[in-house]
């Protein structure tokens, strides 16, 4: 009979701090917890009294990996509150940088954070000697993602040029043409990455737990930058909600083992992220990405959380091809610096965008001087914590029944956490704040 005392303080190769605590005695699971001890940071409070032009610059700092997404969600919420509608050019440039972030983050996760598990290594550093070409390719693709995002946003960690009302600076048509060439030139490296994922796919653990999947969705494309909220249940039932009603979906609550709040909607928990997007929006996926999904053996509705990393591989292909399409449109129209759209009112507004780890909500209220009265940010990893806990609750008894050793159980749990690519330092949370006007 299995007896295990697992205590992983600060899971490695994830962004932020999370612990795994599992006690099993003679085959009986006594404790099984996913804990989040990240230091809370209080961003929703910090934005009070700041001018609307500064708010995204502050909330971008919630997360170093998804700072583009935080900037965009923040600015969309502010623009909603201020009655601003941006130009088609600004919209397209923002879609383009959204793809850059998704690509950049997924390349990092697939190659640097997740792959070592599948290759039996503790990190990417020993792989420099054993799988040098894989590491070099990952770093080249990472740099491509970084320079692609930097061309639009000025830099990828806390981008500068995306501002309420549009874009403060735009790339030249020539620079966009060069980016298009670079993206197409990267296709062989993408194919090689997909081949690596395919070779490692047999090492992805077999585990299924049907759950609810929540992502943005629209009728036009594989919604990354914009859409309504959509939920899909394991039986394929879909429901859409306007972004303004996001609290009807998130239903946040505080639990003792976590500084981050948990969420739930129709079932005990729900998942956000690449797999949730894939399960919600498969029919809108670019044909080239669909081919890759087929080759990798992933189809909706996939209920194995470990397959999130595989869904990310599908998405990096989608990001490149979708961006080539966007670049064709931008280049054909010619890009020029436009004046920023001015506010038409000051009130409350909400915005959502998909970040690499899933759906992200921001909401703010402004006074008549354009100064912020308070904010609310609900981060995808916070929406996944509850789902991770429910995965643990199903997985641990299964591992015990399979007579796995303590070490094997520990690795399976760490790999599960890593498959969500959690971004725990996004520790911002909110209760029922009444914005006092």
């Amino acid at each position, binding site marked *: 009979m299995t007896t295990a005392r697992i205590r992983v303080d600060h899971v*490695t*190769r994830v*962004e*932020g701090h999370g612990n795994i605590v599992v006690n099993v005695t003679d085959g009986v699971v006594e404790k099984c917890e996913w804990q989040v*001890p990240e*230091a*809370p*940071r*209080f961003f*929703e*409070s*910090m934005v*009070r009294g*700041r001018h609307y032009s*500064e708010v995204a*610059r*502050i909330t971008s*700092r*919630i*997360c*170093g*990996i998804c*700072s583009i997404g935080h900037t965009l969600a923040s600015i969309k919420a502010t623009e909603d509150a201020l009655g601003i509608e941006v130009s088609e050019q600004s919209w397209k440039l923002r879609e383009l940088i959204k793809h850059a972030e998704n690509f950049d983050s997924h390349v*990092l996760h697939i190659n*640097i954070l997740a792959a*070592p598990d599948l290759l039996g290594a*503790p*990190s990417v*550093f020993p792989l*420099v000697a054993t799988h040098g070409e894989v*590491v*070099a390719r990952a*770093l*080249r693709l*990472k*740099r491509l993602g*970084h320079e692609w995002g930097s061309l639009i946003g*000025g*830099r990828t*960690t*806390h981008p*500068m*040029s995306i*501002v309420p009302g549009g874009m*403060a*600076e735009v790339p030249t048509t020539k620079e966009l043409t060069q980016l298009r060439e670079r993206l197409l030139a990267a296709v062989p490296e993408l194919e090689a990455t997909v081949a690596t994922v395919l070779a490692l796919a047999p090492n992805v653990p077999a585990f299924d737990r049907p759950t609810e999947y929540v992502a943005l969705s629209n009728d036009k494309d594989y919604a990354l930058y914009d859409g309504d909220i959509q939920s899909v249940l394991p039986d394929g039932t879909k429901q859409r909600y306007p972004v303004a009603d996001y609290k009807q979906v998130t239903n946040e609550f*505080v639990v*003792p*083992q*976590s*500084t981050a709040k948990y969420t739930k909607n129709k079932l005990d928990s729900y998942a956000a992220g690449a797999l949730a997007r894939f399960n919600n929006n498969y029919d809108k996926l670019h044909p080239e990405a669909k081919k890759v999904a087929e080759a990798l053996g992933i189809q909706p509705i996939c209920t194995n959380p470990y397959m999130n990393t595989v869904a990310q591989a599908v998405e990096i292909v989608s990001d490149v091809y979708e961006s080539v399409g966007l670049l064709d449109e931008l280049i054909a129209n010619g890009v020029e610096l436009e004046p920023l759209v001015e506010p038409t009112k000051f009130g409350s507004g909400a915005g959502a965008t998909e970040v690499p780890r899933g759906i992200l909500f921001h909401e703010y209220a402004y006074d008549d001087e354009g*100064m912020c009265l*308070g904010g609310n940010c609900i981060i995808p990893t916070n929406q996944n914590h509850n789902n991770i806990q429910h995965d643990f609750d199903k997985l641990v008894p299964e591992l015990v029944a399979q007579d796995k050793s303590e070490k094997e159980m520990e690795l399976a749990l760490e790999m599960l956490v890593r498959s969500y690519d959690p971004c725990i*330092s*996004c520790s*911002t*949370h*909110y*209760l029922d*704040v009444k914005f006092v006007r």
Partner: protein
Amino acid sequence: MSKPKVAFFDFTCCEGCQIEFTNYGDAAFLELLNHVDVVEFREAMSEKTTEPIDIAFVEGSFSREADRARLESIRERAAIVIAYGQCSASGGINALKNHQSDYKQFVYGADAEQPQLDSQKAQPISAAIKVDYSAYGCPVNKYEVLQIVAHLLHGKEPVIPNYPVCVECKRRETVCRYDEADHCLGMVARAGCAAPCPAYGVPCEACRGFVDHPNVPALEKVLVERAGFSQKRAADKALMFNANDLEALS
């Protein structure tokens, strides 16, 4: 001679400065690994060490008393401690809550007193341990970081600019934000970033902190007279990344 042992640690922060380390591309990154051994880096590797470290990069603010012991153990093991990024060097953005008394209640409401939600004033790590050098910025300038490492590997003192961002705008011929009907903190902000923000059409927020002896009253005067700010907005403007320094200066 064996390669110097380098380790990364993180406290209250977004970990974006660590991410900058993955943005050099293959050539520079793999070359760096020829000169240093990375022995601990939780965000990127599972290996851990209890051995002495030559250079410790410490990211994030000191915002919980519970973190003091971990900081002290890093200091004991490390020959050189670098405050890596603005959260670590000055408290950074995290200190923007320091002047508020109700931030816990605002975010957590009735749950604010639950023990896991403990938080105190966000401070630089130098409030807990001795810091040898600082890599400023939110995020750090990744090329400046390479220079700091190169200087240390050669036994030289890293050179950190102590002149304002305005110098760098002039150098790259960026039109002044005040001439574009905007505002800016560049005249009191520590340079070393190559002034990317004004070049991208947005004001400098002094994310690398102030130069030594900033003339804050003059800054406020310029914000009021040239950017049309209210006195209160002018006084609060530089809080975003410099709340601890403004408190110390007042």
